[in-house]
């Protein structure tokens, strides 16, 4: 059992061959917290999760400096070891085992767990969180809808009894209602005692869930702080919440993509292309 310390990422640098993806990244997820990592495409969000879960090598990447530790001791970069320590990642794009049934997907999620009673308990928990999965154990996962696949993907990760869940864009490509439902489930999972590191482009949803957030830009932490402060910050609002000025303030709801303001500020453009 890990100690009281949660996930600590210290001065992390990651390279894919000659390409630097992360530099000097410090992220802390205290035990029991939900922490969000925001950023545009290519900012290094997924890379950060890969470094934690130990799957960089699948993409020919590697940690070149810094450390990732959980519960006070280092994670050694092997995915199986991370799972054994209770750090489990839900990959981006759901990636359910499409040719296997719902029940088999859940079983695959529990492959790292030896104790059968724990597996049975995890299955009960998952079935109560996602009743639809309990109703369709023999359905092929590939035939589920996108939202159901996302539920299965989260459920599969929960089968390993994680104490730290890494979620990579869980609402990507989902209808707003389904995204809101996934968000509510993440909150429920967290209330049951699982810490969550949530990577999202849907900043409104992420900041609604998280207590603390980091903004990654081109592989570095550009901003960090309590989620409420970031949600109120002009910079984050403009860039990630689609809100221009504090005067056009509107409540930031879960899954509610704020519509563009009435009098938008000039949109930032790439100088190279507009020169």
């Amino acid at each position, binding site marked *: 059992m890990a100690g009281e310390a949660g996930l600590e990422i210290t001065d992390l640098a990651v390279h894919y061959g000659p390409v630097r993806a992360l530099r000097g990244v410090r992220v802390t997820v205290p035990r029991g917290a939900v922490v969000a990592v925001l950023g545009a495409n290519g900012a290094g969000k997924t890379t950060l999760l890969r470094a934690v879960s130990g799957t960089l090598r699948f993409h020919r990447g590697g940690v070149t400096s810094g450390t990732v530790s959980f519960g006070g001791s280092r994670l050694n970069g092997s995915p199986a070891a991370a799972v*054994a320590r209770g750090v*489990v990642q839900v*990959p981006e794009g759901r990636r359910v085992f499409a040719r296997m049934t719902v029940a088999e997907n859940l079983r695959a999620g529990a492959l790292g767990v030896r104790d059968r009673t724990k597996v049975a308990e995890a299955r009960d928990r998952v079935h109560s969180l996602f009743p639809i999965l309990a109703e369709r154990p023999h359905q092929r996962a590939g035939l589920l809808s996108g939202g159901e696949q996302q539920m299965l993907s989260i459920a599969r990760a929960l089968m390993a009894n994680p104490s730290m869940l890494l979620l990579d864009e869980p609402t990507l490509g989902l209808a707003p209602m389904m995204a809101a439902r996934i968000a509510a489930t993440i909150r429920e999972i967290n209330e049951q005692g699982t810490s969550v590191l949530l990577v999202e482009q849907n900043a409104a949803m992420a900041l609604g869930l998280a207590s603390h957030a980091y903004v990654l830009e081109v592989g570095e932490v550009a901003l960090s702080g309590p989620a409420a402060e970031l949600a109120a910050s002009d910079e984050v609002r403009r860039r990630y919440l689609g809100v221009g000025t504090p005067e056009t303030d509107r409540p930031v709801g879960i899954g509610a993509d704020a519509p563009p303001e009435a009098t938008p500020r000039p949109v930032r453009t790439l100088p190279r292309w507009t020169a």
Partner: protein
Amino acid sequence: MTTFLELLVNGISVGAVYALIALGFVVIFKATEVVNFTHASLLLAGGFLVAKLHPALGFWLALAAGVAGAALVGALIEFLIIRRARVGSHGVLAIVTIGVDILLTTELTREIGTDVLALGDPWRDQVLHLGPIMIAETRVVALGVAAALITAFLLAFKFTGWGVAMRATAEDAETAALMGVRLGRVSLSAWAVAGALAAIAALFLCVFPTPGLDRSTTAAAMKAFPAAILGGLDSTTGALAGGLIVGVTEALMSGYQSQLAFLGRGIGDAAPFLVMIAILLFRPAGIFGTKELARV
């Protein structure tokens, strides 16, 4: 009619042995996506061990040693070469396996020389009479053993943790790793299983009515390639179907060779490959192979 039935039963039993070889081939492909061309030499290694050890150990112990030995050779190839080969493409790894196969086969054929080695099996040349049909006992045993092993494997794939890990890895290795599956172990076990199956197949390819194990045994093993491919490289059911199709085709074409004289002699040996080509023209992924399907 009697001839036809005899040929059919013989074809099915030889086909079941091909299916065993094809199954090993498919298991490796599923676990590692490597097309394993060392399979013929694994088979030769297993058979060779049985042939060399049976005078001292007796048949059953020698068979156990042959199976274990071939499994070990398979595991070693995975551990020493495949795992360490830092190449990006599975195609390159397939070529690496051709190299390993050439090395192993050369050494083994050097050891075998021009001998024809008996495997010391207890069935010898006994023949079973089923009404008008005559069939070698070895063929009946081959069919029974192959059917039992294939059933056991299909059940294991479906129901055991090993099977689930294997299928998860086959579908998406990175995600399987995220579930805590140790990919190295999955791959190692696949190679060991393939070696063990190859050794059992070697036994049945070398007993009566075949004279014994000799340097041409690898050629017989090669017929399992079309079996695996036409069934679908990633399908265990396909390995079974492919093995049976190849076995029956070969038996019937050889049996009715005199009526097929216009096709030339030795059509039986070429038939499996012709069937493979014909099937691939209509089903490029093989009969049971997975077509790329994805919901996005």
